[in-house]
């Protein structure tokens, strides 16, 4: 019961903080508009240019693939950046002194930590699922080829990636204690994560060394899952329109739907395993950090 009430308090605090809530919610929407405005044509031109001579696909398919690419980029980045944003409450509590008020109670520190994580998960999922809905609306408008299974799995991938984002942000935020640090970390994550996870630019476009380096980052596999479900329907439709499988396989590789580790293709189940196991490991680190901290103050 304590966990439920404390989680509710954290969720309410996040949604009452209009600046934080709207920033989290509006950022994916703004990204969608910016992507569509500035990158849509670039993606489209790249795609058309990459088509081998004699291969023709309908305008709908081209629009669908560009929209799917935009959607997957936004969701891959947002799941983690929004998680960082919602999980900042634990730092704000330190900065504003609420943590002292909590520490004078006999509440189990593990329950308090779990309360932050649960609240962050709920808030992140609300925002990310709303963002997914908006993005799906955009794809529907541009060119819809997604099967119900892909839509469901897209939500599953968003869930897993959001969970990973929360685990990562819990560990990072553990070391923060001031509003200044909050702002610095938010800026770094917002600016940097999109690049290293392959959200802003396909990993296949990176140099060899960088490609190898990012293959060790769990976020890469989360991005690949989101890309896979976002683009599966439209690529299947391309094959239906007579595009050879070699071409669609190439596109899958180019857009990171298919991803390799040490030269071997990573299956879908392994992608989930990498993201989930990493998230669990990060959660373990977060719990260990809290235990060490509590032992020190006892």
């Amino acid at each position, binding site marked *: *019961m304590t966990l439920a009430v404390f989680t509710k308090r954290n969720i*309410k*605090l996040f949604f*009452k903080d209009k600046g934080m809530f709207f920033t989290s919610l509006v950022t994916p929407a703004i990204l969608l508009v910016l992507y569509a405005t500035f990158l849509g044509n670039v993606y489209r031109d790249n795609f058309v240019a990459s088509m081998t001579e004699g291969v023709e696909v309908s305008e709908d398919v081209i629009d669908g693939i560009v929209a799917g690419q935009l959607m997957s980029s936004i969701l891959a980045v947002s799941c983690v950046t929004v998680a960082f944003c919602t999980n900042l409450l634990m730092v704000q509590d330190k900065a504003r*002194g609420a943590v002292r008020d*909590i520490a*004078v109670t*006999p509440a189990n520190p593990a329950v308090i930590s779990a309360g932050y994580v649960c609240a962050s998960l709920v808030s992140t999922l609300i925002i990310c699922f709303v963002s997914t809905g908006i993005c799906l609306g955009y794809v529907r408008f541009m060119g819809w080829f997604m099967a119900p299974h892909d839509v469901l799995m897209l939500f599953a991938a968003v869930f897993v990636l959001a969970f990973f984002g929360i685990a990562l942000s819990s560990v990072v935020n553990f070391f923060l204690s001031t509003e200044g640090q909050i702002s610095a970390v938010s800026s770094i994550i917002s600016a940097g994560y999109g690049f290293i996870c392959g959200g802003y630019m396909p990993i296949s476009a990176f140099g060899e060394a960088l490609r190898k380096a990012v293959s060790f980052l769990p976020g890469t596999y989360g991005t690949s899952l989101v890309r896979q479900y976002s683009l599966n329907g439209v690529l299947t439709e391309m094959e239906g329109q007579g595009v050879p499988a070699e071409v669609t396989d190439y596109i899958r590789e180019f857009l990171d739907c298919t991803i390799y580790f040490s030269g071997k293709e990573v299956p879908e189940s392994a992608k989930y395993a990498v993201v989930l196991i990493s998230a669990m490991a990060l959660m373990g680190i977060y719990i260990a950090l809290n235990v060490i901290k509590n032992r020190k103050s006892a």
Partner: protein
Amino acid sequence: MTEDIIRIDHLSKSFRDVKAVDDLSFRVREGELFAFLGVNGAGKSTTINMLCGQLARDEGEIEIDGERPESNTDEIKRKIGVVFQNSVLDSPLTVYDNLQSRAALYGITGKAFRDRLSELSGLLDLSGLMKRSVGKLSGGQRRRIDIARALIHNPKILILDEPTTGLDPQTRKKLWSVISALRRERKMTVFLTTHYMEEAADADFVVIIDGGRKVAEGTPLQLKNAYSGDFVTIYGMTEEDIRTLGREKYDKVRDGYRISVGNTREATELILKHPEIFSDYEITKGRMDDVFLEVTGRNPGEGGE
């Protein structure tokens, strides 16, 4: 005989080379108003943090209502309610939400919470405030909510860390009437730190610390007697009359003159020696400010070195 509810023996705490609390020992009796005084940085907050189990001590013993933090921290936390110097409640949330979330941390939920809330609402007159955001309350209202939060689990000891700093005199007076009612009706022990010496003057017992060490302790009367003389104010006499008393130091006050004497006995002797001068007069004890200044060499509220 009243029992000690807080026992501190040879308590020490250092932060690297800085000795924040140095071999501190004192007792707080059950039901008393205990004033813990010191300039900023004297070690008051460090001591409170150790009392509340928020900070590990380097040396010494702490016993609160028979419990020791090393064996039963949770039980001690249930016995203590803290009003922090700055309100630490969640400003965007309503008073109800704040109290509900804090009560849950003590395992008080559902009907138990509603019953306790209703009790506190009557005690602190919170009925009109429940749905208002804490951030939109006045300073006095917010302080009342801070007290309600500190009392939500019905503690035996209420720690007030400079509770009236920044409040206007009327609000301070109201707040003290609430605290007095709590002490009267619930026999609650109040552990107070304050910069307002007139608040400390009403305490049952006072400990003054400086540089982490105890420099004085006693009832306000004992401290005044030990560290501050008495004042005799004489009315209706001329300055020439006052000079006949043979005192070099005297101050002109409204309608009269004030003479500083070592103690009440000295004042009595002076009166008996010069009855013609003392037709209209009063003897007053020194103030706690004088005691504080004498003991620490600084005014209350000043920072430590």
